[in-house]
């Protein structure tokens, strides 16, 4: 009989390349020989992967080969007949194609090259398909009873069968082939007993009966499947949207997604939110972000995750960590809308992040946070590709709901059907991102899936940019289309957006204009800039608003000072400002009777007193304070902590209650004995460095080593430490341990003048310096 390895050896190079493409896990890491390729191809994990990627048609063929193989030699024609029946030419062709596909994947292989050669399942496939392939019971070759296989015999037997026997068989015919034995005395018990006696059923374990494979096949008329699985047709009720609508909504959503990510990063660069200890973004921070972006929390989580997946925000790794935009975002901001979108869309398509799980609870019922490092699902990119691929195949403008997508996937990859919620999430995210428009795959989305230029496709769908704003007397402005980058920037700086969509409506308020002035604009510059984009003149109320805001802008001035000096006598103060003796204090005259200083009140008063002046300090209420020399105290909390520390120290080194004398007497000899055992010379020679010294001076015993290190740290004494390096080599270094804590040793290497931290498990031995060779 041919072997699987032999089959692989006989494949042409092209066929092997095709195999490696169809089953990528066989190629990476690359196998060294064809034999090892064969071993890998028949491993359970590789077979499971291969089965997860085949469609229902191929799966049927595999089941048929496995089921028929055990009952004897099986040819391709038999398999086709068992799956497709005889009549339908289309079904026969489909099954033959499936069979070819199964062979390309090396899941079945023929005995030899003859057209009617027997087919074999590749080794391991029967186990991978489970105990009941095609709902048929396993063949038990050791059983004494041989069930009747001749159809006529079976039919004749059944004619004599007691009532109910036929129903029992009918229930088991198409699988699963296992039935519960009826309890004795029940009506069907007689029938089952009869069936068992005539070999039409066989006993399974003590509570079950099995329908033997041969009987089942006979009852099925030689078929392994009722009907061949065919690709489900396009759902007749699927909605088809006009292409213009799909393009417009996709472009609008895409532009929006890019804008939201930009807005998020702009906001976080100013006020970065803290990182939770577990690594995610807290619920409250997510809420704050949602209200900032004017989104619900679900969509806000999506935007945050998108920015995170694109590497635009990251944990800054500070002592109190926050999520801060990365340098990557600067390049991204520099791109135009379509390119920005394409970058995000590509990130999304290939990201293993499962943003839709944010806000749900994990198995420990803890809330899953956005940007939580745990939120990775390796299958997410494959799922996105599959779902979008399904939509792409459905045709242009076709909207598929999650159940409709699942219907397709159930045929396409029956062994790995994704959960409904995940498919819904992918559709929702794709809609938010603009990969879908009005529920159908847009041209930009199609380009994304196909790996073409998605940015160009989106750019084609974006409406032409408008560089004109209609300014109105009610202090609103309307851009009748998509604002150009320059206009968008101007309106961002000077107005508040009221509504977005085909057009953008903004409102100018005293606050929005003030913000522009805060950023350094002047009233005239602002009005000129608005006028250059406006259709018609700037309305008088808006002009007035800007000028009025400019008039009020900066009337209050704020600055920093550490202390002040006031006096009723301007002449006295005037003399102090330029006095070189007070140059260090940074005195500035704010008003004739008020100076501010950069030094503290105490420094100020002391410096003035030294100069022979007679200042007094005053409190916030104007009361005179008598500055007495500073006396420092630790606060109550500090005092309590100090007490606690003192108590802890006492607990470690202080006199503990001694053990009872009798126990101590028993303990000492035991310790001595253990010591002697260790110090006995080692039976085999060991390398000097690794020799375990059995005195307090040196040890390879981990606990002992720690003790030695702690002692050395306390004494600030150097010790020889034998370290195991990353390559498994050992080296010996003279180190001075500083701190032993939490599985790590911090030590100073005096020879190299460096401080290093060593994981305790990498220390092979520790020896006191004086003992060292």
């Amino acid at each position, binding site marked *: 009989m041919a072997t699987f390895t032999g089959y692989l050896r006989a494949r042409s190079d092209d066929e092997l390349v095709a195999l490696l493409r169809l089953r990528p896990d066989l190629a990476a890491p690359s196998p060294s020989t064809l034999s090892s390729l064969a071993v890998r191809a028949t491993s359970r994990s590789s077979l499971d992967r291969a089965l997860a990627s085949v469609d229902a048609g191929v799966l049927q063929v595999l089941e048929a080969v496995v089921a028929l193989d055990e009952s004897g030699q099986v040819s391709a024609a038999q398999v086709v007949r068992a799956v497709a029946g005889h009549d339908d030419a289309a079904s026969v062709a489909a099954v033959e194609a499936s069979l070819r596909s199964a062979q390309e994947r090396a899941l079945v292989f023929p005995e030899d090259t003859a057209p009617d050669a027997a087919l074999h399942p590749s080794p391991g496939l029967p186990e991978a398909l489970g105990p009941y392939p095609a709902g048929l019971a396993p063949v038990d070759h050791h059983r004494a009873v041989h069930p009747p296989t001749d159809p006529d015999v079976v039919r004749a037997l059944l004619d004599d069968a007691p009532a109910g026997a036929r129903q029992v068989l009918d229930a088991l015919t198409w699988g699963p082939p296992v039935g519960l034995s009826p309890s004795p005395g029940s009506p069907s018990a007689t029938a089952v007993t009869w069936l068992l006696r005539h070999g039409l059923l066989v006993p399974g374990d003590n509570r079950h009966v099995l329908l033997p494979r041969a009987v089942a096949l006979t009852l099925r008329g030689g078929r392994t499947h009722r009907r061949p699985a065919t690709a489900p047709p396009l759902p007749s009720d699927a909605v088809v949207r006009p292409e213009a609508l799909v393009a417009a909504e996709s472009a609008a959503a895409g532009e929006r997604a890019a804008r939201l990510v930009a807005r998020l990063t702009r906001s976080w660069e100013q006020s970065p939110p803290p990182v939770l200890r577990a690594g995610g973004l807290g619920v409250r921070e997510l809420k704050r972000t949602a209200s900032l972006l004017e989104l619900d929390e679900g969509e806000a989580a999506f935007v945050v995750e998108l920015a995170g997946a694109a590497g635009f925000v990251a944990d800054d790794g500070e002592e109190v960590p926050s999520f801060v935009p990365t340098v990557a975002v600067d390049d991204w901001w520099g791109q135009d809308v379509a390119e920005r979108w394409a970058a995000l869309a590509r990130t999304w398509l290939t990201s293993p992040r499962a943003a839709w799980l944010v806000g749900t609870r994990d198995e420990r019922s803890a809330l899953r946070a956005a940007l939580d490092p745990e939120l990775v699902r390796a299958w997410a990119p494959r799922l996105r590709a599959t779902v979008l691929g399904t939509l792409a195949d459905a045709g242009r403008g076709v909207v598929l709901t999650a159940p409709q997508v699942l219907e397709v996937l159930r045929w396409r990859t029956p062994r790995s059907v994704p959960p409904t919620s995940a498919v819904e999430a992918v559709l929702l995210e794709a809609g938010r991102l603009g990969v879908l428009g009005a529920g159908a795959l847009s041209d930009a989305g199609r380009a994304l899936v196909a790996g073409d230029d998605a940015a160009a496709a989106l750019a084609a769908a974006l409406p032409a940019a408008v560089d004109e704003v209609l300014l109105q007397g009610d202090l609103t402005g309307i851009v009748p289309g998509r604002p150009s980058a320059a206009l968008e920037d101007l309106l961002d700086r000077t107005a508040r957006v009221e509504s977005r*969509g085909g057009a953008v409506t903004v409102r100018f308020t005293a606050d929005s204009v003030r913000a522009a002035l805060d950023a350094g604009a002047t009233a005239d510059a602002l009005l000129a800039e608005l006028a250059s984009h406006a259709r018609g003149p700037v*309305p008088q109320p808006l002009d007035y608003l800007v000028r009025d805001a400019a008039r009020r802008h900066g009337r209050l001035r704020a600055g920093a000072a550490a202390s002040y000096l006031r006096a009723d006598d301007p002449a006295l103060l005037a003399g102090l400002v330029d006095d070189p003796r007070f140059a260090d204090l940074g005195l500035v005259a704010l008003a004739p009777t008020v100076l501010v200083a950069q030094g503290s009140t105490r420094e100020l008063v002391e410096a003035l007193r030294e100069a022979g002046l007679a200042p007094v300090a005053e409190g916030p209420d104007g009361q005179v304070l008598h500055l007495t020399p500073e006396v420092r105290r630790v606060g109550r909390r500090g005092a309590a902590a100090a007490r606690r520390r003192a108590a802890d120290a006492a607990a470690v080194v202080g006199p503990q209650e001694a053990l009872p004398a009798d126990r101590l007497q028993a303990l000492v000899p035991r310790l001595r004995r253990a010591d002697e055992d260790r110090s006995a010379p080692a039976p085999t020679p060991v390398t000097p460095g690794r020799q375990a010294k059995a005195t307090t001076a040196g040890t390879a015993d981990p606990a002992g080593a720690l003790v030695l290190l702690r002692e050395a740290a306390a004494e600030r004494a150097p010790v020889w430490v034998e370290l195991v390096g990353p390559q498994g080599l050992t080296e010996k270094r003279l180190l001075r341990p500083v701190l032993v804590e939490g599985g790590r040793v911090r030590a100073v290497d005096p020879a190299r003048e460096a401080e290093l931290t060593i994981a305790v498990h990498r220390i092979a031995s520790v020896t006191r310096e004086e003992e060292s060779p």
Partner: protein
Amino acid sequence: MTNGPLIVQSDKTLLLEVDHDQAEACRRAIAPFAELERAPEHVHTYRLTPLGLWNARAAGHDAEQVVDVLLEYSRYPVPHALLVDVADTMSRYGRLQLIQDPVHGLVLHSLDPAVLAEVIRSRRTAGLLGTQLDDTDVIVHPSERGHLKQVLLKLGWPAEDLAGYVDGEAHAIALEQDGWHLRPYQQQAVDGFWHGGSGVVVLPCGAGKTIVGAASMARSSTTTLILVTNTVSARQWRDELVKRTTLTEDEIGEYSGARKEIRPVTIATYQVLTTRRKGVYTHLELLDARDWGLVVYDEVHLLPAPIFRMTADLQARRRLGLTATLVREDGREDEVFSLIGPKRFDAPWKDIEAQGYIAPADCVEVRLTLPDAERMAYATAEPEDKYRLAATARGKNKVVEHLVAQHTDDQVLVIGQYLDQLHELAEHLDADLITGETRVSERQRLFDAFRNGEIHKLVVSKVANFSIDLPEASVAIQVSGSFGSRQEEAQRLGRIMRPKSDGKTAHFYTVVARDTVDQDFAAHRQRFLAEQGYAYTIVDAEDLLADRGELERD
């Protein structure tokens, strides 16, 4: 992508570019279902609201028409979700109907058993519904007709009221069109109302709402109860009805604080109806005093809450609401919808102005810089006193005086909120003063003198906000108001908008103190003016007075 005048935003606002060729056609097409939110010079903003869409359903439009209009005029593809939402919202109206069953009386009939089941299960309808007859019908207690409609609207299933109206006691009323004629839009308003049965007619001040009321009464020819805001307004209604219809003074009764007449046509004030003694409304019997065939609510946007409750019991009678704006500062627009009825007619101010039925107006805000002493007083005042301090700034007198001097040939109204200020101004300007304290007869005399041109300036308090017809007033100067009330702004503007015999432009001045809450409130009110399409300009008082060298600083 067409090049239409309309941009449909995903937040359900519609932006209409008015300079576009198709703008007018588009405006007509969207008016039935979209609420005009603001109408400044270039782009008008409409909004799709559930109430607006239901109003359209009540007027016989269906979702398909709405969607078609949006698609036809939209410049960009219309967001798909919005169209779905429109269809969804509109389909909710009328699934429930209130009908008169020959056997069971008033019945809530549902075209969709599931909706009825949902409504019956709701806790809010407890006690309003009687026995359930079958899957689609449930008996309604006749006394709860109004209350039920309110509840159903809140539940999002507004009922179509097909239960009809009592005929009421017949009383012959006809219009006497000698020397005047019903204007086309007034006729449309009456037709719209009568066809719908009950509802609200929205017309700007000065567009002749009283005449729409009179014409509706003539159409009904039944005894009528008219509810108005105050006594002066009641007298004006009476005069107008005597002038415009066949009714005589004897047929019209006044039911107010002063008089309690019940005649075939009775005009009652909101105030008397809401008077309570020991917690009981003492004049409620008026509502049942006669078998009224029509109830008219003047200034429906001011209808006090107790009247809503009383109105809930009047559902079997035809109800006509008249108002200049459906905006209620208290947000009870939905109660107007469910208890008075849907909007039956609406015409934007600018349209009627363009047709020459109301005067064009020029709005100016004069900003006055307070002298340092007053600024200091303002800065340190308690928050509750700040508005009064700013609104009554003494510098305003000078500005008003200057403005009055500019309009020597016009009929000028000076309107304010604070009596001290008004007294001072009256003295300063040598003008007569009308406040709430002025006796009704004295008020009448002064208003008459003003109308006849015997006096050409008048200082009035907020009593003049509503329903006082002063057709010749062409300049209004507002010195203080009720905080930021947009409604008050509309009313005050309305005072000067009756068309002038010489076709002159009306002037509306607001004097505000700079950098105070006065200015903030004024901004709120101006937004209303700008949204109504009245361009306003802002002028510094210093500039105004400078040319005359009147500016002094104390």
